[in-house]
């Protein structure tokens, strides 16, 4: 077996004195799509942010490409080629689409910005049409594509996606999921995905984890988890 790209070992994180993560163990192998599903407030977004050092883990270690990044400041972690499309998209509202993408390229030093831009535009052609429009005036789906596109601009080795399908129409959801699959299959991009839409996520992912109250309750391959009765009743029934 090869080395994991990302390994999270016994990580706990707190907001003030309240524990949001209570000893999480997760591994992501190179080339995998790994998903985390769980109810609202389980701590999924916190885990994504803790990988990025905000909040920093109070216990445990986070290893990326063999290097302990647990206590690095956020910007240094991101410069190691981890990119996140965070919960709520967080597009810069008073910057144009193009400027938002430029911000994404901030850590791609020495790279070919034109090629990266072309790659994002071919993945999401609508962004090219909207390149001079202010981010804040895009539709929700366009903002989501921009958030993913912006994350890709740094040519990440690990892409963190937090609920990319939230609030989007089924057609757009399918478009975004097929873009994720393409990135993984064609470019061997490793993707760590948080989703409410458990059915879609587990079908897409190689492996998945179920998170409950800041702990990992179950794990397995995507199809294994889809078959589990506990998963079906809690996250799938009526929810697809």
């Amino acid at each position, binding site marked *: 077996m090869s080395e994991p790209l990302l390994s999270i070992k016994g990580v706990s994180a707190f907001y003030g004195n309240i524990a949001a993560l209570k000893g999480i163990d997760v591994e992501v192998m190179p080339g995998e799509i790994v998903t985390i599903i769980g109810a609202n407030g389980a701590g999924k977004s916190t885990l994504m942010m803790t990988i990025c050092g905000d909040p920093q883990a109070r216990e445990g270690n986070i290893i990326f490409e063999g290097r302990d990044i647990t206590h690095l400041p956020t*910007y240094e972690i991101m410069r190691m080629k981890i990119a996140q499309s965070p919960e709520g998209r967080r597009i810069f509202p008073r910057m144009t689409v193009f400027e938002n993408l430029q911000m994404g390229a901030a850590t791609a030093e020495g790279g070919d910005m034109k090629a990266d831009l072309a790659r994002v535009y071919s993945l999401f052609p609508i962004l090219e049409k909207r390149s001079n429009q202010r981010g804040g005036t895009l539709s929700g789906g366009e903002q989501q594509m921009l958030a993913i596109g912006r994350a890709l601009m740094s040519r990440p080795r690990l892409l963190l996606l937090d609920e990319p399908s939230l609030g989007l129409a089924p057609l757009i959801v399918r478009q975004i999921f097929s873009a994720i699959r393409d990135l993984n299959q064609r470019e061997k991009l490793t993707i760590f995905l948080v989703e409410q839409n458990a059915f879609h996520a587990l079908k897409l992912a190689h492996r998945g984890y179920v998170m409950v109250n800041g702990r990992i309750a179950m794990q397995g391959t995507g199809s294994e988890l889809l078959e589990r009765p506990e998963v079906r009743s809690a996250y799938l029934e009526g929810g697809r």
Partner: protein
Amino acid sequence: MEYFLQQLINGLALGSIYGLVAIGYTMVYGIIGMINFAHGDIFMVGAFIALIAFLILVAIGITAIPLALFLVLLIAMLLTALYGWAVERIAYRPLRGSFRLAPLISAIGMSIVLQNYVQLAQGARVKTLQPLITGVHTLFDFGNRLVVQISNIQILIILTTFALMTGFSWLVASTSLGRDMRACEQDLKMAALLGVDTNRTISLTFLLGAALASVAGIMYLLYYGVIDFHIGFVAGVKAFTAAVLGGIGSLPGAMLGGLLIGLIETYWSAYFSVQYKDVAAFSILIIVLIFMPTGILGKPEVEKV
């Protein structure tokens, strides 16, 4: 008529000085959401550094005015920028993430510290600089000794301000540092998630704001020839008013607000009462805060985020 025009020129010169200081307020507010009450005192420190630099240059025999002016500008901008940087490191950064009022109180403390420091180091009495840049040009002559004039120092103030504001606007709009600054202003957390060293960007914002304030300090020194440790307070409040009037957080707003405050103050003094000119500026602050809290060019909140 000639009186009106004359006041227009005086007002533009004064407003330029306020505008340069207002940029520092607006940039810092935009990026970390605090009013840097010590910024007016940074302006004062800039004026003192400039005065000392002038005296040293004269003492070592550099008296050619353009050269001296250039060197003073360089020295004052550099040293004042260091003061601005240090204020942020010492008084604001350790408090980031604590309750909202904490950095504000710290800023008021920093303002007092800077004033007392200069008072102790330089004395409480006013310092004077003999006029270095003299000469006036008559723009219009209506006969009967009714003339509109512009002095060389006014030309210098207006042109320098115009150049600096153009340069600074370009920096913010078109360089990667400027883009990082705007990103931090719009979403500090997201900027960090894209690999921006946000602490560094905030430091640079303080540095640049202080450098601009120091230029305003030099202009003030050259224009009035008299400074003391207290000038930062009144000028600071007016520049802050300018920033609020223009729309706090908005760069063009700060420039516009500065010019407007300069003009209002000048016309008020010219047509009503010099004694109450500060009252006029403060009244505007209150009126704007009540009726137009986002200012003239304040951000219209149209974004659906």
